[in-house]
């Protein structure tokens, strides 16, 4: 394998840990499951006829979204306060692409649930998290705004799905074709 220069000076790179923290790994996989199930639910529930099941699924979808929103805030703060491992050796364009994809993922993990919540408010349906806590409405009821918001929510959710596929495909490519630790390091962790 060619010896690619790393982005940061060697001394800085060497000081970085070899692994993610246990918390970072746990957050990654919990959010993977939540985002995949929230997306699958959302894409299918809208096609259901008017049944009690539909209302239930809408509620679950909203709870998942709010959980993702809460977790991405925790995850973002964790990421800012805990060093991430140094990059695996790879061509610079791949490193830039990977980092850009991570940035887009964070932005969408924040934007998609926020748009969903705002859409729910604009439609006149407050979000009651886990049937227990009624969240504040982010905007007043407004049918026209609701239409714009649901379009944006849907569009960005599909964008998120596509970026997730890209991210996963790249991880698999690194694992199976490059034989590097990109994917493996999301399965192992350090203690602090």
């Amino acid at each position, binding site marked *: 394998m060619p010896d690619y220069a790393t982005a940061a000076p060697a001394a800085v790179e060497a000081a970085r840990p070899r692994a993610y923290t246990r918390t970072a790994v746990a957050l990654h996989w919990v959010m993977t499951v939540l985002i995949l199930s929230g997306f699958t639910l959302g894409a299918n529930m809208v096609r259901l006829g*008017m*049944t*009690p099941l539909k*209302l*239930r699924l809408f*509620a679950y979808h909203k709870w998942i979204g709010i959980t993702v929103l809460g977790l991405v805030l925790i995850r973002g703060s964790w990421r800012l306060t805990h060093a991430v491992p140094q990059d695996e050796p790879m061509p610079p364009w791949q490193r830039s692409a990977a980092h850009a994809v991570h940035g887009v993922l964070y932005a969408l993990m924040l934007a998609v649930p926020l748009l969903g919540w705002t859409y729910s408010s604009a*439609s*006149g*349906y*407050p*979000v*009651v998290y886990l*049937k*227990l806590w*009624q969240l504040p409405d982010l905007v007043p*009821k407004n*049918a026209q705004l*609701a239409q714009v918001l649901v379009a944006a929510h849907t569009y960005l959710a599909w964008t998120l799905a596509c970026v997730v596929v890209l991210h996963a495909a790249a991880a698999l490519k690194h694992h199976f074709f490059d034989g590097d630790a990109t994917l493996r390091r999301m399965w192992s962790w350090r203690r602090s």
Partner: protein
Amino acid sequence: MRTSARVWLATAGLISLAAAAGDPAINLASSSIVATFRQENVPVDAAFKGFSGRVDYDPAHPAASRAIMQVTTASLDLGSADYDSEVRKHDWLDSSAYPVASFVSSAVSAGAGGHFTTTGTLTLKGRTQTLTVPVTMSRADTAAVFDGTLEISRRYFGIGSPDWNGVLDDKVRVKFHLVE
């Protein structure tokens, strides 16, 4: 005075009021009747866009006071065309068979300040229930304003099939703000 002659006509189950004089009719544009139901514990407000009626209240002569309201059941606005067409169906409000819901007072008793209670008959989806509704009267400019809330049971009036009972509360609160 509120003693002007009134003729009550009852035709085909609908009651309409032909009043020669008395208090002006409720002004639809500045009034509201909003039903709040809970689905999965989410409170959802739905407004009736069509209603009419009149409240004649004289604290000095409660016995001569009357309230009558008629609400167009097909005017319930849930904020989405899908929900709106659903709620007009047979299982719900059955608006083609029961286009109008009504409340007709049978007794009014005065309370302190602007408060009074009215007892009357609510007719909804072909079923009737006697309710006692506390009302607060105030004034906006010169117009009389009547505010109050009543709570009804979906099950009692046969609104929504039992399949929905798991996700939809039985109790529905109806809040009215009636301006003359």
